């Protein structure tokens, strides 16, 4: 796992930079290929509900996932496929949730981007925007109480989510408690169809940092090296006791809000601008130009990604879907406290609750 890009001297700087970018590129590529697979499954009518892609945001997302360590906390958002993989999510797990496999971490109860393994520090998002940040705070606070290593908590949101009260309460709470929170805002110019000029009136969202008493940083989300450097530094700052870090990335969503959306509202001028560059293409170009990867290598990585994604999706497609008759229909962890409702079949009322299937431990794994 690549942790620091800066701070090493001479030739090792270059080689560490190269390693970081190569690793990031491969997570980005894998995420892109996985996203494209989900999109094609969606078009084929094989997915229930929506599909949300991270196209154009992979560099930022990968940088977040790569900057974290096992024991850290990660609360990704809908466009964080790359970061999830880099943090240790498997392709199978992602596919299971999208396809509603009974074997997935959410067991068909929740789906698509709402997935995670909370006990491993990998939080499944609530749909309500901004709501995950204070949950990360609570995990970090708990570790302080317990006197165990606190780690770093990273929460990702879009610029639209900064308009929620939840964002404000949570960032302020983190500042008051001086928690090692890294709050990463992907300002991709739009919240669904709404341009950011209807979302906030400050110059940049990083201008909010001072008002919370936290450290702020901005970065160009199309440039993977900058993503790695700035996010990496923020994570190191937080880890070193520097308190909450607000990182604001400039980029453009290169897809619809979801796959149902053709994003016809996106200003063409933005697409032509620097912001509209595809971070994956930029990274690939850089690898080529700097001679850090040959065409053959690039092709091989792509082929490998496609192969892994196909294999994962194929195997998950053969897995069982949830069975309503096996389902406990008990929302409580304490089955004896389940309320009995007349119209339910009596079997369900007596309700023995099956244990959840064991989930594998998450860890930040090396680049694929």
């Amino acid at each position: 796992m690549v942790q620091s890009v800066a701070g090493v001297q001479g030739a090792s700087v270059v080689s560490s930079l190269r390693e970081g970018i190569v690793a990031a590129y491969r997570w980005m590529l894998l995420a892109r290929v996985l996203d494209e697979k989900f999109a094609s499954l969606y078009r084929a009518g094989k997915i229930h509900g929506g599909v949300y892609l991270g196209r154009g945001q992979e560099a930022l997302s990968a940088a977040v996932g790569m900057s974290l360590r096992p024991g850290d906390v990660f609360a990704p958002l809908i466009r964080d496929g790359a970061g999830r993989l880099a943090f240790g999510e498997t392709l199978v797990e992602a596919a299971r949730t999208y396809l509603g496999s009974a074997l997935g971490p959410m067991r068909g109860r929740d789906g698509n981007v709402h997935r995670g393994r909370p006990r491993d520090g990998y939080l499944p998002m609530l749909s309500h925007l901004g709501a995950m940040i204070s949950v990360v705070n609570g995990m970090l606070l708990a570790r302080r109480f317990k006197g165990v290593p606190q780690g770093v908590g990273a929460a990702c949101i879009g610029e639209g989510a900064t308009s929620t009260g939840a964002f404000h309460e949570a960032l302020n709470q983190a500042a008051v408690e001086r928690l090692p929170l890294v709050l990463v805002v992907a300002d991709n110019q739009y919240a669904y169809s709404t341009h950011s000029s209807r979302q906030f009136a400050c110059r940049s969202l990083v201008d909010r940092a001072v008002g919370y008493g936290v450290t702020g940083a901005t970065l160009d989300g199309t440039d993977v090296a900058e993503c790695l450097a700035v996010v990496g530094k923020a994570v190191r700052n937080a880890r070193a006791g520097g308190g909450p870090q607000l990182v604001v990335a400039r980029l453009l969503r290169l897809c619809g809000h979801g796959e149902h959306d053709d994003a016809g509202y996106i200003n063409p001028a933005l697409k032509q601008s620097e912001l509209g560059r595809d971070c994956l293409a930029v990274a690939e170009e850089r690898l080529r130009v700097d001679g850090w990867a040959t065409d053959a290598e690039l092709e091989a990585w792509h082929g490998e990604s496609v192969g892994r994604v196909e294999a994962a999706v194929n195997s998950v497609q053969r897995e069982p879907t949830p069975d309503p008759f096996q389902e406990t229909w008990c929302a409580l962890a304490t089955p004896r406290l389940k309320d009995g409702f007349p119209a339910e079949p009596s079997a369900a009322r007596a309700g023995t609750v099956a244990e959840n299937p064991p989930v594998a431990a998450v860890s930040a794994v090396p680049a694929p």
Partner: protein
Amino acid sequence: MSITYLEAIREAQARALRDDPRVFIYGQDVGSFGGAFKATKNLAQEFPGRVIDAPISEDAMVGSAIGAAIEGMRPIIEMQFADFSTVGFNQIVNHAGAFHWRTGVPCPITIRLPSGGTTGSGPFHSQCLEGLYALYPGLVVMTPATVEDAYSMLLEAVAIDDPVIFCEHKYLYYHLKAEALPTEALPVGKARIARAGRDVTIVAYSAMVHEAIAVAEELAGEGTEVEVVDLRTVKPLDTDTVIASVARTGRLLCVSEAWPWGGVTAEVIARVATEGFGLLDAPPQRLNAKDTPVPFHPNLWTSHRPTARSICEAVRRLLQL
């Protein structure tokens, strides 16, 4: 010509904007985009400056609607999904709901909640919150089941001097069609006999009315005449029409897509038991969704909510009691 439930909602808003300069629409993506479900399609273009994109700030959305209402406007707030109204909950129930009683000044706001389950929507894009808002004093809660009601009740929601929670069912958006928009309507607060019958009463509202009608059709083939009452508004609740139906049939099943504790089915049964006890030939029955979050996977989802099949079973059981 044929018009969907969703188009009726759009047309009602177009007409409200056309007829009443006090009306404006505020919500996420409602402007030139036309809303997540296209319920405001072209309205920003037709009514410049009156259909406005909101930041993702449900609390401020509702709070500012209250302010605009104080100044005599008639705001329509679109929540992107009913589920997200929980973030603006305080302004809705404590501020809007209590405003007229506290101050004597009406608070005419309409809050549109795209409600109910659709396949693959999961725990946070599927909720039915009519029973939540009906708990609080000062709110009118509408749950239209037909294209005609979607149209006429939304117009009335805007006209009424009180805050109205307008629960429009997402499943009906595209599935339900009518020949034309209505020119007249039952008064708000009156339930409707959606289908007459003499053997058993099913009280339902919103999407469940159609499941109930399907059951009525199926059972008609077996000689059982099911009467279906469509509540239309759940607050106020038209106890009289429900009790009159139970007086005819002697048997009551109340169906809702919401969770089983409390809510509309409890209220309906409590009222009938209290006020129409002697009319009942059998214990009144209820059917709700299960007491878990709404599941994502269709396998689970179709077992979670009442369906024509489970309603039919419940009716058969009830007829045996």
